[in-house]
């Protein structure tokens, strides 16, 4: 169905590179053949060229993005060198990472029909296919709704439906679940699985959160340092993959072979381990906060936005040394709670305190000394032309000694090129830069909104270490996240929001392990034991042997 023959992509050197005219190779010599009806997962670290590889399939590279394509990509017999993306539209459906940015029209029904209109499908067939697509993706009850009002999961399903309705045999998805909560992500992946199994559609997916997709995959393509593997068996690929989900981490640590990919397989293998671990004395829980006075607190906080209640009498106090993960589905009020803590939303009822300061109506300059927030899109707080300028600007903004921010940054990510433009940094580096800017003034509370969006496991691990060291130095950390594995690694306390209300608040182990949606993989495998991360298991078994 899809054939890559010695394919490579390179861009002619940009102004950042030392000598003009030199070219940067994204990857080279990719040769593989994806048969029909396969679900293939593209795995690689951030910035390794996964998106570029996906964009080769429907010809966006090189027709749309420029650059040089070497070798031949053939899709169902059509050569992408001679066929533009629009000529492949009836064959390949391409779903981008942020569905909202890909919508052309403004209601669900029209968006689904749009592609067919462009392809000239006749009106009766189009009507029928729209209805079928609405049913297939479970969107019938929102068909007339404006796209902006939908939840993230619904938007992603509309984006899939919109390309699917045109009847492509191949579906290419770039990080379809990175912005979704675990339940919505499961929804989207179940849909994909159904398309593969019921309709025989060929699906190619790139995804960072391997724990969500690896067990659905038939084959895996690994990209590392510009090298592209052929089609690998998922279990074999995971033995050497540089990035891997916790389930694989556990399997590798316990030297299981072949590696189990699904929770079910892993549970079957883990019987023995569970017995050993159960016999051990209970391991000490992650150090909880030092207690004492709260550095940030909300009391009976309610926030109303138009007709919806974003938060309903939420009370929460965060102490020094605590790492609080705020979880809940998309739109549960996580971001509103964080914004409320830094005085960006006006409470309808209730009070907010940062130490003794009421952030509502306070000067922003006073707030940032007490609470610093890294927004969901870190580039929002980066304005300068280069990393060095950004650090200098932050020193000026917060009235710090020159060089403070730069030294904080050097501590977080050593060796960042100070001349680079913030937009040219990788996602992980950008988060780090934003963090450095926020941390420079040493606020007592650090808030992070979805910090792991687009981060691979290595970048995530660095972030976890950083957050832990912050907590140990007496900062309080509050993060809103969908990423259960991150919460399991770093949180001392988990708060679950639903419909703007606190439905659970307690130690990470107690809250996460008990929930079917929010339980991390290790906890699912070792249930009913309260282990959350591979490190905990390794520490326990290491002590045992």
């Amino acid at each position, binding site marked *: 169905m899809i054939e890559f023959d010695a394919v490579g992509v390179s861009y002619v050197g940009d102004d950042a590179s030392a000598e003009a005219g030199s070219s940067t190779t994204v990857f080279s010599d990719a040769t593989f053949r994806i048969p029909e009806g396969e679900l293939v997962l593209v795995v690689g670290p951030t910035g390794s060229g996964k998106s570029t590889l996906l964009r080769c399939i429907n010809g966006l590279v090189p027709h749309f993005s420029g650059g040089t394509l070497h070798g031949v990509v053939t899709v169902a017999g059509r050569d992408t060198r001679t066929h533009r*993306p629009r000529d492949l*539209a009836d064959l390949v459906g391409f779903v981008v990472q942020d569905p909202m940015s890909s919508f052309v029209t403004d209601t669900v029904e029209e968006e689904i*029909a749009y592609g067919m209109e462009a392809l000239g499908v006749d*009106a009766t067939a189009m009507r029928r296919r729209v209805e079928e697509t609405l049913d297939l993706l479970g969107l019938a009850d929102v068909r007339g709704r404006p796209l902006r009002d939908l939840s993230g999961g619904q938007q992603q399903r509309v984006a899939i439906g919109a390309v699917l309705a045109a009847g492509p045999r191949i579906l290419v998805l770039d990080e379809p679940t990175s912005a979704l909560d675990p339940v919505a992500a499961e929804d989207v992946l179940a849909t994909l699985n159904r398309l593969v199994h019921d309709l025989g559609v060929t699906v190619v997916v790139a995804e960072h959160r391997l724990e969500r997709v690896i067990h659905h995959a038939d084959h895996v393509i690994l990209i590392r340092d510009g090298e592209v593997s052929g089609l690998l068996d998922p279990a074999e690929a995971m033995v050497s993959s540089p990035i891997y989900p916790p389930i694989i981490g556990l399997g590798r640590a316990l030297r299981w072979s072949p590696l189990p990919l699904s929770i079910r397989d892993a549970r079957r293998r883990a019987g023995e381990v569970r017995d050993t671990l159960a016999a051990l004395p209970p391991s000490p829980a992650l150090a909880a906060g030092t207690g004492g006075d709260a550095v940030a607190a909300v009391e009976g906080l309610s926030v109303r936005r138009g007709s919806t209640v974003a938060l309903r009498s939420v009370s929460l106090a965060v102490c020094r040394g605590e790492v609080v993960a705020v979880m809940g589905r998309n739109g549960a009020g996580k971001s509103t709670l964080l914004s409320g803590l830094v005085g960006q939303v006006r409470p309808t009822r209730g009070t907010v305190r940062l130490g003794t300061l009421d952030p509502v109506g306070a000067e922003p300059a006073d707030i940032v000394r007490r609470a610093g927030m890294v927004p969901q899109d870190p580039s929002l707080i980066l*304005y300068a032309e280069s990393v060095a300028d950004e650090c200098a600007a932050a020193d000026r903004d917060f009235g710090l000694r020159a060089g403070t921010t730069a030294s904080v940054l050097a501590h977080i990510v050593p060796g960042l090129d100070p001349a680079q433009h913030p937009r040219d940094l990788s996602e992980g580096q950008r988060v780090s830069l934003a963090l450095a800017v926020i941390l420079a003034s040493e606020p007592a509370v650090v808030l992070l909104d979805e910090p792991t969006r687009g981060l691979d496991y290595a970048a995530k691990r660095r972030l976890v270490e950083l957050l832990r060291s912050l907590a140990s130095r007496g900062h309080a950390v509050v993060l809103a996240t969908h990423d259960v594995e991150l919460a399991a690694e770093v949180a001392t306390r988990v708060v679950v929001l639903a419909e703007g209300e606190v439905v659970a608040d307690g130690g990470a182990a107690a809250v996460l392990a008990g929930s079917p949606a929010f339980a991390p993989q290790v906890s699912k495998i070792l249930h009913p034991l309260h282990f959350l991360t591979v490190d905990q298991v390794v520490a326990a078994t290491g002590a045992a042997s």
Partner: protein
Amino acid sequence: MTARRFPTPLPRLLHPAAWWVWAVGLAVAASRTTNPLLLALIVAVAAWVVVERREIGATNPLVPFLLIGLFAIGLRVVMVALLGGGVTGRVVLFRLPEVPLPAWTSGVRLGGAVTLEGLLAAVYEGMRLAAILACLGAANALASPRRLLRYVPATLYEVGTAVVVALTFAPQMVEDAARVRAARRLRGHSGRGMRELGRLAVPVLVGSLERSLSLAASMESRGYGRVVRRTATSTRLSGMLTVAGLLGVVVGLYGLLDATSPVLLGVPMLVAGVLSAAGALAVGARRDPRTRYRRDPWGAPEWLVSLTGLVPAAAMSLGTAFSWPGIVPQQVPAALPPVPLGIVASIAVAALAGVLSPVPPLLARSREAVA
């Protein structure tokens, strides 16, 4: 009996073009008269039909349009009081202190006597503008321009798409700006003042640029502009016809709405423009392989609604041509304007649209629930 002979149409949305024809008809009628009673009647008809046939959840721009209309009346009155209008009346209400101006500014004065006739003329003129605005507001409320955009001729498809995208982008940019401003506060800045505004511009522009690129990629990979089988000649021909047609329509409408322009600029120009545009549509559409999803049908209710809107326009135009009394009431001396019954009847015909058109589906459902 009558119910069976004239079955009320099933609940559905009327074709947006029908509503726009109806509203433009009313607006043309309003533009021809300065009789305040007739203008008030036109606004009442427009408002009543909106109340009767606006779909639930649709925006209601009628109210803001009416407010703008009121503002126009007020502005006009103030200007006339200050600067004097074309009407020199006899009944002086009061005198403002007058600023002497040099002789060459004849006709313009600052301050001075304010006459009843002058003020009334200003109110009438203002009301005319307000009534036209009310008609446009009604059209917007009954059928959003976005729905109308789906019916742009195939030759103008690209333009239509661009407008739709722009309509979606504008609110997103506002949202972006709010987000960037909030982020600015996270850096300890207030986000207010001119310098701050400059700081906001860059991230907002970069953000929308990135979104445009990603939208373009999405449209490209979904087959936008894929099989345009038009030849160069037919493209050129249809393009020329389109431009000529649009020009004709615009000039024709102007001629119709502006009663002082020569007759030739009115209906004949409009007809020529429409014909030329239709030609362009035919030439362009013949080779256009794109199809459209779920077009609204054009049935009997659409014809009826369009006709009821055109009746007052026709009556008023005839009235102007034959100088029927009451369409342009005399202004010196001030008198209660007469009520020409024929014209009133023709405007009442336009109100029939509120009965003849099908009820929008959601509105029908909620009415049933109430009943």
